């Protein structure tokens, strides 16, 4: 397929020439990017904070399309699963939405008694110039809870800018809680959003190691925990694109060091636990960690070997939001004996793409901010068996007769951690091995093609 000229620099094939890939750009008009906007970036990061009110200040669409958008779970309050909006109308656009915002905030805070409120600005708020800071300050004074404006006008950059807005908002909470009694062996989990309950599994690992978890940021998150997060001895950052900035702020302000981890795949999961143990440099913790990893692997590896045998040599393509997750997925597919032939993300950095180029096989397509037509041509060219992505990628795979694994919005199974690796293998297996593909017309076409080749070369 011919690429749009402006898109050529955002695609690289491993091994072909010196690495060069352009990224962190605005999406190209008319290219049908898979990205969302600034608002989306901040909304997905903050919304799992379950005892906070999340009010979207804007017309109805922004709130309604992000209602419970990723199924982030909570062990207690579920305020985050409601979709609150000021539902701005034409009259508010003309006369300003500040009064409506204030009344809506007071109404909702009285109704739900949240521990804090986040107020998201949307495109239109940036244009009509509502002073959200001022409204939030007033409401904070009246209600005595933190009321925090999130500057997330959709057009003010791409999704990464939304991550920054979310980090800035959380930074306003951190430092205001009491940190007495926090263990010197303690950490905050940053960048896990508790899809399918993953953060519970990760917390359990840390607890088994003898490490205290202070705050979940943000999966199954609580305002009070985030307020005292600065008392933790370490920040453990996954999904670095979204929360690394917060870790940096906390390092500058409170001297909390951070490490980057990933909980996907056996290698990275084990590495994450060892990195934490080594950071604390405590023999007991280290021993417990060894024990934990050993137990988990003993349980997992025999079960995994079945899937490895079956999936050997199958081809995988990856397109996810952040490229750090892509690394882990590349490794996870390798563990299953599969070949990754395409990997891309919506918001990766140059450094991350460079590293991906280093670890992937020659010919692997590496792509930033791609779109349906490019994805289609990549999947067809590479004759992919399974594609990993989110909801928007799913029908592309299926229409091409390719298996699919939802690693984002609608999954209900844990894919992180050791047991998550088994779920991942099972899901990949159940899609790749399904008998339904024998009925799809691509398979028929491929068989016809092979048949013709066989007829033309009878000796083969």
């Amino acid at each position, binding site marked *: 397929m011919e690429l749009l000229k402006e898109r050529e620099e955002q695609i690289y094939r491993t091994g072909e020439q010196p690495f060069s890939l352009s990224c962190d750009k605005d999406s190209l008009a008319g290219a049908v990017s898979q990205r969302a906007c600034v608002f989306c970036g901040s909304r997905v990061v903050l919304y799992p904070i379950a005892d906070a009110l999340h009010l979207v200040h804007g017309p109805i669409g922004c709130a309604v399309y992000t*209602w419970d958008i990723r199924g982030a779970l909570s062990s207690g309050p579920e305020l985050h699963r409601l979709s*609150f909006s000021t539902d701005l109308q034409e009259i508010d656009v003309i006369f300003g939405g500040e009064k409506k915002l204030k009344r809506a905030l007071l109404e909702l805070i009285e109704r739900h008694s949240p521990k804090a409120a986040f107020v998201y600005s949307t*495109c239109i708020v940036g*244009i009509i110039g509502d002073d959200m800071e001022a409204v939030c300050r007033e409401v904070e004074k009246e209600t005595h809870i933190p009321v925090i404006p999130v500057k997330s006008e959709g*057009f003010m950059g791409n999704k990464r800018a939304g991550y920054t807005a979310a980090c800035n908002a959380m930074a306003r909470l951190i430092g205001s809680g009491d940190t007495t009694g926090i263990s010197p062996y303690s950490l905050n989990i940053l960048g896990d959003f508790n899809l399918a309950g993953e953060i519970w599994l990760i917390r359990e690992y840390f607890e088994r190691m003898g490490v205290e978890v202070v705050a979940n940021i943000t999966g199954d998150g609580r305002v009070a925990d985030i307020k005292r997060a600065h008392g933790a001895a370490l920040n453990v950052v996954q999904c670095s694109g979204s929360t690394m900035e917060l870790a940096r702020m906390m390092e500058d302000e409170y001297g909390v060091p951070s490490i980057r981890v990933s909980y996907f795949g056996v290698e990275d999961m084990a590495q994450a636990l060892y990195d934490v143990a080594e950071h604390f440099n405590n023999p007991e913790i280290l021993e417990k960690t060894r024990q934990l990893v050993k137990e988990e692997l003993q349980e997992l590896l025999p079960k995994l070997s079945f899937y490895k045998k079956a999936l050997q040599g199958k081809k995988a393509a990856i397109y996810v939001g952040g490229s750090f997750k892509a690394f882990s997925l590349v490794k996870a597919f390798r563990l299953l004996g599969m070949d990754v032939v395409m990997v891309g993300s919506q918001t990766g950095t140059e450094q991350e793409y460079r590293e991906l180029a280093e670890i992937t096989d020659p010919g692997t397509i590496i792509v930033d901010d791609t779109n349906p037509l490019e994805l289609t041509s990549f999947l067809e060219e590479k004759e992919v068996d399974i594609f990993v992505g989110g909801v928007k990628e799913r029908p592309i795979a299926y229409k091409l007769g390719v298996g699919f694994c939802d690693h984002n919005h609608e999954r209900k199974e844990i894919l992180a951690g050791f047991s998550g690796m088994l779920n991942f293998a099972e899901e990949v297996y159940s899609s790749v091995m399904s008998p339904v593909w024998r009925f799809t017309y691509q398979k028929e076409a491929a068989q016809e093609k092979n048949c013709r080749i066989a007829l033309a070369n009878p000796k083969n």
Partner: protein
Amino acid sequence: MSKNPPNYISTTNACKLCTPLGAALAFKGIEGAVPYLHGSQGCATYMRRYIISHFNEPIDIASSSLSEKHAVYGGGANLKLGLMNVTEKYRPQLIGIATTCLTETIGDDVKLFLREYDKEVEGEKPIMVQVSTPSYSGTHMEGFHNAIASVVEALAGRDGKQDIGSGVNILPGFVSPADIRYLKEITDDFSMKATILPDISDTMDGPAAKTYAKIQPGGTPLSAIAVMGNSMGSVEFGHTMAEASGGVLLAEKFGVENTRMAMPMGIGASDRFFAYLSRLSGVPVPEKHQAERGRLVDSYVDSHKYVYGKKAIVYGEEDLVVGLTTFLAEIGVMPVLCASGGKSGKLAERIRQATADLLPEQPQVHEAMDFYDISELAESLGPDLLVGHSKGYPLAQKLSIPLIRVGFPIHDRMGGQRILHLGYRGTQQLFDLVVNACIAKKQGDSPIGYSYM
């Protein structure tokens, strides 16, 4: 009608979507069309994600992907760049451009940009149809109907060389691909030439194919839209759309008689639709459809005791709510609350007109409702059933009552695109769903393990 509706300033769990989403879906029902949102990137992506979870089909919605500088200096340049890129990559016959709250508020003059584009850009250009859809005004249904009106305004015509007064225009509103396939079957059975606008039966429910189509085949053919002015009549389903609808425009411009009727749901409303087609075509209702009607009546009788007196809450788009309420009233279910996020001001009156002779008491009817309001009212109403889309599930779960899934979105079941709502056949399917939900509830609540119910 009794009781004032709750009147909260905030909205919780809206029972409506925004205007550009409706426009994008309407444009998807036109042959060779790519929907295009003039706004920031997020709108298109969010809507795609929302729509895909219902239809399980690719839906490529382009965007002019405006950034900060465009918001300050205007989005014209990016709009044009995007149009060029879409043209190059998709080779569409038509680009349907819908605005968003951002571009409406910064005052972009899309019509002017399109005139400039026409002059500035050389070579083959797709047809451009544009509709104004500020998301702070109306719901997805206004976006849907206005997009269709824009298509009619821009493309409908009359061909003197062809027969005048042949065929029918059907403007069904937002119904399922299965509904549209059925409408085609019906008009075929009447031997009528029908132009259904829009037609998402293939574009949003495409069969598996050997090759990936950049633009899914199907949709209302542009050649058919071009001669909608030749038709004998137009029929529009629903009464709550704005005055200047596609059907009204066809009447004004070409003198094609326009008939607005309620969505044909239930026997009475379906009879009116079949009678209309019969009158227009001069063909009696075909035997096949009379038989389907007969089986439907037979099933009503067989099952009436399971549903009589059950209390239902109905929610969703206004015209769909009218259709559903009429159907439920017809089978002896008592609608107790009819709610919509829309606010045409016509909902209560339409329900009253359609059900006055069926219901001993009119239900509460409220516009501009969200799911918080509905839940609050539900507590005192004690409903046995919810009838609406997937977003009512949390309420159904809370009340431990069945949810009959209809309309859009169906995000928690497969096959939303294949739900049939209209005509005798759609009514039959809805009826069986309602009856069996009532039976399953009774069976499930009993410890006995009945295998006869």
